[in-house]
């Protein structure tokens, strides 16, 4: 009964979405106020039914309703409650439902928080989001219905993929989807502005906070995913340039470019056509990511169960949404006139540079991701493109970007002079170089040139960002009150930029100074790694709710003092009958110690054990966290909430 209710709610939501898409769009076009007024209520009704559908699926999981095929495939009576709930989005169908729900939530958010947007414009925005929603709901109902029944009803479910039975992964997909889908708001604003024929700076102002929040979610989502991969896959890596990771990273980079470009469009009225294009790209890449993950065109460790009909549907949808927007762009963009001018040396130029680099980075990643597909399509063989390509393309492109982070933020709009900046920044540069040298030479066992470059760069980013805050208040009488009065947008930017510095420290030191070792350890054996002594005390049996495990025990000491007790596990999940490595990690600010249990070796109770020493790896996620938080702060800036009179 409950699954049927969910199914009907989904169908009703689809019908309401059609209303939400058609009536406001036509109403805005023909200027029929009654039809425009339908926009908000239709969103609320649609959101309500989406929530009902989602609740029904969640309920089916909680009560173990294995007559629902999706539940039977992804749950089990032994599965703990938390994972029964997160299993709702643990596979293709349910994650689509989450995607569609996220879209409804964002649309609902737009109706509530964008009261300052003129009704006609808002009707178009809601209509465009409704069109996207129709696509996803149709896709779900036609090809991937989470409420499909199964007969005969199995007595036991197949259980959730053990890799996904982890708290990090329970919240990673919702964050990621909120991010992906969030870019639909900026996209809808851009399309609405083009439909209305009024591509002024107003749409940029309206979509900025939305873009920031979406970007924040995506940042957290990607960081959580990377953190999960680090401790759950047991390889000690945190980023693999896997097609699915790239699929989330590309919209993120494009979203970063979009945030910066929106600032220029709003403040200076320039880059208008370009910003519209970026808004289309950011959301298109989210959709493309969805296609790549679910159609099976690329191989990936994360791929969902695939089905060609789904691939065809998403591709058609992609062609409609992206092709339609780009067609509209091709028609409307030539009419855009940019009024303002700027000098070669100005913040405008710096941001243009930022945009160009970010777009080039995205294009290179897209190329690397699709290259195997292209080669295969041409019948030229099977190849795979891996980290060597991505690292060698990504690193050189991001170095100039990092060099400019702090500088760009200090530059003036429209025009600036190099001498003014040099005068301000040379002491900062000097301090950065000296501090980096001192730190490296006093703490690093071996000073590698690339590490030095990375640390100088990171400290430069952080120092110039902090200097930027000082620069804002240093000529003021009341410094404290000037600090307090500075807009949140400014603090958000500074925090995110500072996070970039923290992030660079993390990547540089982790990738250059990590050590790992596969060793054979029998109880009583010792091994030295990275200045730590790992003593193996043996393996015992352990019992979990839906698995049995071998649990190793290691004592880690440094200079004779106890540092940590680590208990890595090798789990065997009963329902899915596959083994899982559960690494044990002693986390720290300056280093992680990471131990994964390998295979049991013959006789004498010896095991193969993998040991890692990973310096500064936490800084990668701390940096990402600061970036995301910065995005949130900037979105809370109060000037987005004041009534916008001239646009009305």
């Amino acid at each position, binding site marked *: 009964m409950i699954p049927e209710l969910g199914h009907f709610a989904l169908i009703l939501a689809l019908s309401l979405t059609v209303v939400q898409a058609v009536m406001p769009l036509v109403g805005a076009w023909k200027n029929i106020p009654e039809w425009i007024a339908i926009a908000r209520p239709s969103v609320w009704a649609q959101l309500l039914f989406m929530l009902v559908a989602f609740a029904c699926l969640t309920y089916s999981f909680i009560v173990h309703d294995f007559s629902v095929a999706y539940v039977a495939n992804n749950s089990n009576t032994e599965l703990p409650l938390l994972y029964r709930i997160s299993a709702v989005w643990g596979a293709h169908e349910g994650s689509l439902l989450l995607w569609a729900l996220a879209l409804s939530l964002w649309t609902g958010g737009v109706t509530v928080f964008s009261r300052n947007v003129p009704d006609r414009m808002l009707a178009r925005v809601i209509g465009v989001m409704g069109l996207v929603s129709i696509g996803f709901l149709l896709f779900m109902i036609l090809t991937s219905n989470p409420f499909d029944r199964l007969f005969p009803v199995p007595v036991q479910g197949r259980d959730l993929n053990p890799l996904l039975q982890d708290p990090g992964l329970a919240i990673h997909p919702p964050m990621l989807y909120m991010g992906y889908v969030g870019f639909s708001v900026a996209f809808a604003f851009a399309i609405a502005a083009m439909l209305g024929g009024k591509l002024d700076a107003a749409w940029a102002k309206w979509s900025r906070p939305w873009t920031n929040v979406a970007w924040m979610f995506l940042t957290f989502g990607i960081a959580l995913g990377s953190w999960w991969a680090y401790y759950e896959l047991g390889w000690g890596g945190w980023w693999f340039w896997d097609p699915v990771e790239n699929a989330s990273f590309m919209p993120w980079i494009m979203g970063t470019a979009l945030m910066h470009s929106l600032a220029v469009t709003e403040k200076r009225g320039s880059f208008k056509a370009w910003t519209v294009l970026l808004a289309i790209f950011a959301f298109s890449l989210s959709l493309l990511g969805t296609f790549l993950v679910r*159609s099976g065109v690329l191989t990936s460790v994360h791929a969902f169960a695939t089905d060609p009909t789904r691939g065809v549907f998403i591709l058609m949808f992609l062609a409609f949404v992206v092709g339609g927007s780009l067609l509209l762009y*091709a028609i409307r963009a030539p009419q855009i006139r940019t009024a303002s001018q700027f000098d070669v040396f100005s913040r405008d130029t710096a941001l243009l540079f930022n945009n160009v680099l970010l777009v080039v980075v995205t294009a290179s990643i897209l190329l690397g991701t*699709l290259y195997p*597909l292209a080669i295969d*399509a041409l019948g030229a063989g*099977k190849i795979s493109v891996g980290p060597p390509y991505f690292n060698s393309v990504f690193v050189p492109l991001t170095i100039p970007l990092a060099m400019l982070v702090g500088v760009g933020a200090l530059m003036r709009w429209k025009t600036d002079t190099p001498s003014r900046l040099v005068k301000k920044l040379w002491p900062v540069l000097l301090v950065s170089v000296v501090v980096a040298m001192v730190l490296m030479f006093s703490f690093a066992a071996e000073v590698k040139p690339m590490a030095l470059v990375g640390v100088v760069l990171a400290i430069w980013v952080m120092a110039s960002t902090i200097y930027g805050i000082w620069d804002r208040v240093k000529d003021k009488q009341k410094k404290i009150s000037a600090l307090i009065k500075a807009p949140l947008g400014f603090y958000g930017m500074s925090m995110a930029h500072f996070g970039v510095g923290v992030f660079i420290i993390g990547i540089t030191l982790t990738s250059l100074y990590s050590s790992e070792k596969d060793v054979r350890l029998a109880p009583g054996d010792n091994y030295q790694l990275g200045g730590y002594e790992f003593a193996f005390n043996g393996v015992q049996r352990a019992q979990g709710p839906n698995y049995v495990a071998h649990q190793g025990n290691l004592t880690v000491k440094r200079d004779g003092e106890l540092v940590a007790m680590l208990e890595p596990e090798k789990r065997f999940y009963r329902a899915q*009958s596959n083994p899982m490595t559960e690494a044990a990690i002693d986390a720290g600010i300056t280093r992680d110690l990471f131990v994964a249990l390998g295979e049991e070796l013959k006789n004498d109770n010896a095991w193969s054990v993998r040991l890692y020493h990973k310096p500064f790896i936490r800084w990668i996620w701390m940096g990402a966290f600061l970036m995301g938080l910065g995005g949130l702060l900037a979105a809370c800036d109060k000037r987005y909430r004041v009534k916008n009179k001239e646009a009305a």
Partner: protein
Amino acid sequence: MNRFALPLGIFTLLVVLLAIGLSLDPREVPSPFIGKPTPVFSLPALYQPDQQFSPQQLEGKVWLFNVWASWCVSCRQEHPLLMQLSKQNLVPIYGLNYKDESNDAKQWLQQWGNPYQLSAHDLTGSVGIDWGVYGVPETFVVDKAGVVRHKHIGPVTVDALENELLPLVKKLQAEG
């Protein structure tokens, strides 16, 4: 044609590429041995080391050639299926015991059952290399003329057995 239409043009090409991509299977790595006669070898049988096994002895029969080892975890996963298959007498299964100690292998078969008519003992793994084995288990289907017709990578699943291996075996057995 204006420059603003350029993104649309590029996107159109991308869609064409993705559409072609949909009809391809990225997981399918073609084996160069499919459609070729079985690589020639002669190995001692696991239980009678003085007796040599070579695929030429099986000409005129359709048979499965399953690469296994006692150290291979996934082999244990497919093992019950192979046991069941051997009891059905649909098709003879020959084994290639790959890079394994003779005693370990025998003990393993004793514990879990022996579905094989015979297992060739490839201690050094050289025959495995000739057959293009890159992971254990793998299962080959060989036809009456001694030509390799299919290769299944990884443990045999119920799905693969019922939808790929057995239909192919039946088709080949029906052939001249």
